[in-house]
């Protein structure tokens, strides 16, 4: 049992931080611990959460994806254009946007894989391209969509206080968890991040997996953009600016190692909720300003990165 505690302690630390934060906030602020607020936590952070799920796959494989914020914006604007300007029904427009997101990610993955280029630069190009396209789609940069019946209908769905964004997020968590745990693709993601050359020697399909990983990041970001549109009833080309940073932070705080190979979707969920609570606290505490959020997130990052470092040294000494 001790062994297993050792193995899971990064995740347990994250869980501990989350519980402590939640309990502290619940004691300090009336209404924080209500069921409605709990559901709201998921709803408010659905876009970030979806992006972080995709980012988890990417980081587990040892890569990075700087384009997710821009892809969210592109999806948001794309959906608005398809529905409001071109008059497509929502049930066609949404799958179309998801396909575009998937294709965008897969394209970046293919370039990274084929030409052996650093993911940092390729996804940086992807970020410029997606953000630029989003901004160029219309001159207004923002399209109000409250007149779209489809979007209105979707935004009014509520199941035990969980809106559509929160539900999509939770379903995505489940699907991603299952994919990482129960599919060969998922295990190959870990294998690539842990030791790519060994994975190749073991005959695992590196190329298709890498393309798949960035495709997943693309589709998750696109879904993030879609739920954002549903939540705000507007498409916006400047939304999710630098959101990739928060997504990376959530993944790292969730115990996933930036070098790849180690981490979990559950951790990412916890990381997203930690960021979510930290961002909510200033709403309750008038004298606490929003910039403290960034400083606290930076500190949390520092703590978790150092913890990972220590645990690596420790396990390295045994190996």
């Amino acid at each position: 049992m001790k062994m297993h505690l050792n193995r899971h302690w990064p995740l347990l630390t994250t869980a501990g931080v989350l519980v402590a934060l939640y309990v502290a906030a619940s004691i300090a602020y009336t209404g924080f611990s209500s069921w409605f607020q709990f559901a709201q936590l998921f709803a408010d952070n659905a876009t970030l959460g979806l992006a972080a799920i995709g980012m988890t796959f990417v980081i587990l494989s040892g890569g990075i994806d700087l384009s997710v914020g821009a892809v969210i914006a592109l999806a948001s604007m794309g959906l608005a254009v398809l529905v409001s300007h071109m008059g497509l029904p929502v049930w066609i427009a949404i799958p179309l946007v998801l396909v575009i997101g998937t294709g965008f990610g897969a394209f970046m993955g293919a370039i990274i894989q084929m030409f052996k280029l650093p993911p940092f630069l390729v996804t940086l190009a992807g970020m410029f391209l997606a953000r630029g396209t989003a901004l160029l789609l219309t001159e207004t940069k923002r399209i109000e969509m409250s007149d779209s019946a489809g979007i209105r209908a979707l935004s009014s769905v509520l199941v035990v206080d969980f809106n559509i964004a929160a539900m999509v997020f939770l379903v995505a968590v489940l699907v991603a968890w299952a994919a990482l745990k129960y599919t060969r693709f998922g295990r190959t993601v870990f294998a690539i991040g842990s030791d790519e050359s060994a994975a190749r020697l073991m005959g695992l399909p590196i190329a298709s997996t890498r393309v798949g990983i960035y495709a997943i990041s693309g589709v998750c970001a696109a879904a993030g953009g879609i739920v954002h549109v549903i939540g705000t009833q507007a498409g916006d080309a400047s939304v999710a600016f630098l959101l990739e940073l928060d997504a990376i932070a959530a993944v790292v705080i969730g115990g996933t190692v930036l070098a790849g190979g180690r981490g979990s979707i559950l951790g990412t969920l916890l990381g997203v909720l930690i960021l979510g609570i930290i961002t909510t606290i200033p709403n309750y505490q008038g004298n606490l300003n929003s910039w403290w959020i960034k400083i606290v997130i930076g500190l949390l990052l520092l703590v978790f990165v150092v913890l990972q470092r220590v645990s690596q040294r420790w396990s390295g000494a045994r190996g």
Partner: protein
Amino acid sequence: MRRSLRQLIWPLVALALLLVFNAVASPSFFHVQFVNGRLSGAAIDVLNQGAPVMLLALGMTLVIGTGGIDLSVGAVMAVAGALAAKLLHLDAPVALAIVAALGVCVAAGIWNGGLVTVASIPPIVATLIFMVAGRGIAQLITDGQIITINPGSSFTVIGRGVIGGLPVPVVIALSAALVIAAIVRLTSLGVFIEAIGGNEEASRYAGINVRWIRLSVYAIMGLLAGLAGLIDTADIAAADANNSGLYLELDAILAVVIGGTALTGGRFSLLGALVGAIIIQTLSTTILMTTFRGHSVPPEFNLVIKAIVVLMVCLLQSDELRRMVLQVRRVQG
């Protein structure tokens, strides 16, 4: 010398093409006038507005030369501007404001370098921390407000002044380039950086103080980012902690890569990075000035062009692509 010139050919060709395009599409681009004791014109504006990225690119070249990267420079810029503006707001002397701001930026650089060297945290993660927290610190200093600076204050000279007909930011960037080039090439720092980036193990065997060199490179980066932040703040006579330096770390990295320095470290080119920074700024200016069938091109087009530039540069440097091309040629020949 010959080698470094050869490295520079592609960026220079790219810049030349851009300039030729400008000369044809908007002849006013090269129209430089001497008005009220200062040179003015689009070409001068490119240099003036490009000054912060030029400064960042200089430092980033050294950091990337050692095989590192610094994502925090945009946040460091914001801290510099915020601190200087806050001190000026409290009626501190201009010199104190500048020195204090730059000092804090050097400290930020040392913090980054310390995480990389002492704690052995990969540079991308180590500097991500300050990238996130630094902007928060800048906002903390400014209380989340935009602090304006009295436009009459001598501080604004940094952003708006003129020396010998040239805008002060251009003078600062070019002098910084000269100073850095001198430090790097007249001392052994440059060779050490290239040795560490080229083969860290061999550098250790040869008795080079790898940690110290790494640390100082990040410290220099901090100083240059601070200068860039001061220029940015002085230019608009206000410290905007939310937007100062936003995205500029990416532009700086891009400038370095365009300039022919590989992200893996080793041989680096300061001149290449300057050319890269000028290319990036020329691109945005070009797009602002270009009209297409009577319509101006939306500035957002800049991002799409940048995306294509990044991809082209990557592919040009890709060994894998070179291999493929050679293979195809061999099959055909």
